[in-house]
């Protein structure tokens, strides 16, 4: 059972949640082309800091919500060929565009004109995918389709074990970033 909010109210609550998301993307500095591209060049680690922290904080909270019966998982199916091909295109597109879909939308609001051009490109990409959807579903999404599996299912390491591992990796990575890889003109916050 989710928290007692009517479906209609929950739907509209998505607007303020989105607004806070937009504020956080901008204030986090990730609605900035330079920050995103320089993550992939290992010159700025803002994206990694934001995402890794969000995954661990979010994951532990959602795990507690789920195990107390207040939330359910929404796992995307592991159609491995589709995920790998799609992610490969996504990574190349992200460096070329300089934004991902969410940060691109946030960047449009900051006055980035090339973010708007890329947004039109994203709409075109959406059309292109819709047109090739039937073929992709039949020929790509069926290859190595493992279903809605989670890492604990395939490894036997329980949920909390994964979060201990992830938190340990994050601690080491963040420590290395903050002590060894501080680049001038990279991460701007003091």
């Amino acid at each position: 059972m989710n928290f007692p909010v009517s479906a209609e109210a929950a739907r509209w609550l998505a607007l303020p949640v989105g607004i806070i998301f937009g504020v956080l993307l901008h204030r986090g500095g990730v609605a900035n082309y330079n920050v995103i591209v320089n993550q992939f060049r290992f010159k700025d680690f803002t994206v990694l800091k934001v995402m890794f922290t969000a995954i661990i904080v979010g994951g532990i909270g959602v795990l507690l919500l789920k195990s107390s019966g207040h939330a359910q998982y929404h796992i995307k199916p592991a159609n491995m060929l589709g995920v790998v091909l799609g992610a490969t295109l996504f990574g190349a597109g992200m460096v070329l565009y300089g934004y991902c879909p969410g940060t691109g939308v946030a960047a449009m609001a900051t006055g980035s004109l090339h973010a708007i051009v890329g947004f039109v490109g994203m709409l075109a990409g959406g059309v292109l995918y819709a047109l090739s959807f039937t073929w992709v579903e039949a020929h790509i999404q069926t290859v190595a389709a493992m279903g809605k599996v989670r890492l604990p299912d395939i490894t036997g390491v329980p949920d909390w074990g994964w979060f201990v591992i992830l938190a340990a990796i994050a601690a080491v990575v963040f420590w290395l970033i903050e002590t060894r890889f501080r680049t001038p003109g990279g991460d701007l916050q003091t």
Partner: protein
Amino acid sequence: MKETNYSSKTIGGTDRAEAKARWNPYIVGIGIGVLSWIAFGVLDEPLGISTALSSASSVCALPVMGSEGVAHNAYWAKNPLKWNGGMLLLMGTFIGSLLSVLVSHSFRLEKVPATWQKQFGGSTAKRFVAAFLGGVIIMFGARMAGGCTSGHGISGSLQLALSSWTFFLTMFASGVVTALILFRKPATASK
């Protein structure tokens, strides 16, 4: 309208007003994490952008395909454009960023970002072509993979989904290779 001047108003290619508006990235990460508690616990809908965006793209196909054609497309029949949580989240992301920019006085028109300019020069046309192509590729990839940096990268990874961690690691590796090729030091001095 202000002209972009990278030498006096920027640090490391980033506008000073925008830099001053920055919050600590760890705090921002915690904020997004807490937001995902609400997304799962109350909205029953993970944070994600690309599904709503690809539904919205059906509007662009309307003039060519007509409403019949769009309705009969297998993808849009499955993901029709409507005012659902995902669409409101998408709208909210834009509004939130706009509010944040206005409050912090960091709105600035940008045609060619500093990092791009350093490598490829100041041509607006060149940057716009790249941004457009990048947009096409990223969206096609997002839909094929079943999500983007939000839906897979954050919401999926925090659920420890195999698909999402595969996406995250593959996407990052592909981005690093692309950046290596795109931002390599010019072997021959070409302008």
